[in-house]
């Protein structure tokens, strides 16, 4: 029994990372391909994956750099596009309280849309976890991202044209699965539809990926109001 309990108490980060790996492979590959086709070397393409590690930001960086945009514009655009990580980091901070602080500067680098979404779902249902869980989840995902962008870049420099692997739907499917795991009660259903529609609307008026962070902030704020409002009924 004790052995059983010990085994069960550590959630397996590698296993949790598998859907992310499936989702990262085609996107990382596509990124690598686009990067090389835009005139960057394989090592430049991979360098962005290694040091920036943010899919949409990397695609934007490639297009801005090849268009000759200034460093200030480029860097501030990337900053805005990735501001949503601030939100993820704030949210995760509540679950990293008993993890040794020396790991935080390393672990926080690996927070992405996908690793955050998977981690927060695991953490909410499982209160027993260690830094090992985070390392497993984060490093597996990171490796898949870097490796697939390398493969894409190599393929792009070897063969011409683009390749469609039909795994395009892996990430949207994962968002759907994670969303349903998060939803409990009509308030969350309401906030989901509200934030989603708001995100679409804002997409037409805001630049880059800012619609995601603005819609998420307003959506979550709406949730707080909803909580207050329902309690006062």
């Amino acid at each position: 029994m004790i052995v059983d309990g010990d085994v069960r108490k550590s959630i397996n980060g590698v296993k949790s990372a598998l859907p992310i790996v499936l989702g990262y492979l085609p996107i990382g590959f596509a990124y690598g391909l686009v990067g090389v086709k835009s005139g960057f070397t394989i090592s430049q393409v991979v360098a962005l994956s290694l040091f920036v590690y943010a899919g949409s930001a990397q695609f934007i960086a490639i297009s801005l750099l090849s268009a000759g945009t200034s460093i200030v514009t480029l860097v501030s655009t990337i900053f805005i596009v990735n501001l949503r990580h601030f939100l993820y980091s704030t949210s995760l901070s509540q679950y990293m309280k008993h993890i040794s602080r020396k790991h935080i500067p390393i672990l926080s680098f690996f927070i992405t849309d996908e690793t955050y979404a998977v981690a927060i779902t695991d953490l909410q249902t499982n209160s027993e976890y260690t830094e090992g869980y985070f390392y497993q989840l984060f490093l597996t995902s990171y490796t898949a991202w870097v490796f697939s962008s390398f493969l894409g870049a190599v393929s792009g420099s070897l063969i011409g044209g683009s390749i469609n692997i039909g795994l395009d739907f892996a990430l949207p499917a994962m968002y759907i699965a994670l969303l349903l795991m998060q939803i409990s009660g009509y308030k969350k259903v309401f906030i989901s539809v509200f934030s989603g529609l708001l995100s679409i609307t804002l997409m037409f008026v805001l630049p880059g990926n800012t619609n995601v962070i603005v819609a998420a902030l307003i959506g979550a704020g709406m949730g707080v109001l909803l909580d207050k409002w329902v309690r006062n009924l």
Partner: protein
Amino acid sequence: MGTKFIISVIGMFLVTYIPRFMPVYGLTKIELPQAVKSFLEYVPVAVLSALLFPVIFIKDGRLFLALSNIYLLSAIPTFIAAYFTRKLFTPVVVGIVSYVILSFIIK
């Protein structure tokens, strides 16, 4: 391209790392007020919806509500699988398979 690229990468590293690092490092010692906790509880739902809706409803910068929208159609079986399993892997596989089949039928 050499120097400009290296400076750009350093700049991008800093602006992507700082928002990831600061909150998780600064807030782990602090007990947050109830309203903030309530806010954070809604963040995952709000973020996931904000990411998902544009992917399945928008194509080339336009609202795409048609039977030829493969993303939207594939979302239906994925949603059903997710509703019944409440797990990650099965809906992802259902989604990919639906997407591949639908791509063949519609294209």
